[in-house]
């Protein structure tokens, strides 16, 4: 039972990580609280769902959810955040909230106010390992989250782009005088982070077998709690915090029977972290700095 809950907690934590790491990346470079990131997640979910309905290929769904996410992300960055970059961050925050609401409402107008589900042929199997049951959908979610996180690790730690991104997120002007085209780097980072949010939308939609226009509401604010816990702008802190929140939620509800709503737990965790370690938990892991 406990192991089952740990497996479930890590699964959901992995999906949180896909959303939160992109958000942390954006905060790290532009210092913008990108609430509309959850809007990108909703768009990714619909793109993936309809691609699956049309083609019955989950691979194509993955591609389309990521592509839709990347495109929306670049548009948001180019036409909303960049023009506002010189103003106080509160203005981008308001713009971001407005954008989030309008994306969700557009989805509702286009696809209707109903919960949609995937065709029945997607992920029906189950695997038994002793007493632990792992659904096929869970396996796919874990596999793709791990692959995506490994990709984030590789890109940010090993490639020149990752090094340039680190430089840009510390000091845009200095990075520019050292030959780094910061606009290009920021666009690529947005596209990358948003593609992952799109993928997360698809995975959550497929895992719970439901896609609906307001599915981004909870992630929008929970992801903020996660990046605060992780240390604002620190993507590996966000990764650790995502797994922690996933585990805390599942274990509190499933094992400890805590009589609180599931979605409140991330915020309680955030408050506790702010009380005792306001700079976030990232400092606990030396060497995983920004």
């Amino acid at each position, binding site marked *: 039972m406990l192991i089952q809950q740990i497996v479930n907690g890590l699964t959901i934590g992995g999906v949180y990580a896909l959303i939160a790491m992109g958000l942390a990346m954006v905060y790290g470079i532009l210092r913008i609280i990108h609430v509309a990131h959850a809007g990108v997640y909703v768009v990714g979910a619909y793109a993936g769902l309809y691609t699956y309905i049309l083609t019955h290929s989950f691979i194509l769904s993955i591609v389309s959810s990521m592509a839709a996410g990347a495109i929306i992300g670049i548009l948001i960055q180019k036409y909303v955040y960049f023009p506002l970059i010189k103003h106080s961050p509160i203005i981008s925050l308001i713009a971001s909230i407005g954008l989030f609401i309008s994306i969700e409402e557009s989805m509702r107008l286009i696809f209707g106010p109903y919960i949609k589900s995937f065709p029945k042929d997607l992920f029906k199997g189950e695997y038994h390992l002793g007493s632990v049951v792992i659904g096929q959908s869970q396996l796919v979610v874990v596999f793709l989250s791990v692959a995506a996180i490994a990709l984030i690790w590789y890109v940010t730690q090993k490639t020149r782009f990752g090094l340039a991104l680190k*430089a840009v997120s510390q000091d845009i002007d200095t990075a520019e005088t050292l030959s780094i085209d910061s606009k290009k780097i920021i666009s690529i980072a947005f596209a990358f982070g948003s593609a992952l949010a799109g993928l997360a939308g698809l995975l959550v939609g497929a895992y719970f077998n439901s896609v609906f226009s307001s599915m981004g509401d909870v992630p929008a604010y929970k992801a903020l709690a996660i990046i605060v816990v992780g240390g604002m702008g620190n993507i590996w802190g966000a990764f650790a915090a995502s797994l922690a929140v996933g585990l805390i939620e599942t274990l509190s509800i499933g094992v400890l029977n805590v009589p609180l709503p599931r979605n409140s737990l991330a915020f309680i965790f955030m408050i506790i972290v702010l009380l005792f370690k306001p700079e976030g938990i990232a400092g606990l892991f030396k060497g995983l700095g920004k």
Partner: protein
Amino acid sequence: MEVNKSKKIIEIQDVVKIFGGLKALDRVSISVEESEIFGIVGPNGAGKTTLFNIISGVLKPTSGKIFFNGKDVSGQPPYKMAQMGIGRTFQVVRPFSFMSVFENIMAAYGVRFYHNITKSFSKWKKEEYVKDVMLILLKTELFEYKERRADTLPLGVQRKLEIARALALNPKVLLLDESFSGLSFSEIDELKKLVFNINNEGVSIVVIEHNMPVVMDLCKTVAVLNYGKKLVQGSPKEVVSNPDVIEAYIGKKQYAQS
């Protein structure tokens, strides 16, 4: 081959820069010859750093032109200037604090790849690149600090790091903005040696400097700026004995009325 007729690496023509109502630079023209060390001096607020910001593309001139290697580069963004071969340091040091010395230099070494999107995603820690960066670390005597986080270093070392980072661009011109200020005598001597070494490899150098003995030692030609205008240009010796320059620094000679 003519020896005396050297090529101009940087040519600034009638550059004007206006901030609000303030004329920070007023029709300044300066040319720097290939492989010379050129000095810019002047009182605080004379427009020296503004001039550097314009040469390195950080600011766009209100009017006037900048030529680099004979090509008009006025108004190009800083990353393009850097890619063409203009490296600079900042008056107030600006290392990437959360990165190691090695990573700081490696970020600038990427100049060889950033223009190409595929190459931008290549691995940065390949043996040949690491070797190149090690050479820069050795040349700038930063080897022992290579794994240290940049913000934990003393000022003199951070200054050298800024120079090392600019060198990784493989520059044709290096702009040093008061790199010598706040350093101890021994640090000044070390840095002077480094500047000469870099210059001997054919890199032209422009220094902004308040420390006159350093300027005397380093520079062949010096330009004096005051209130955004170029006052005089000449050898360091000529410049320090020029009455206009003396006036700019310590005021007009006045005779007590008796």
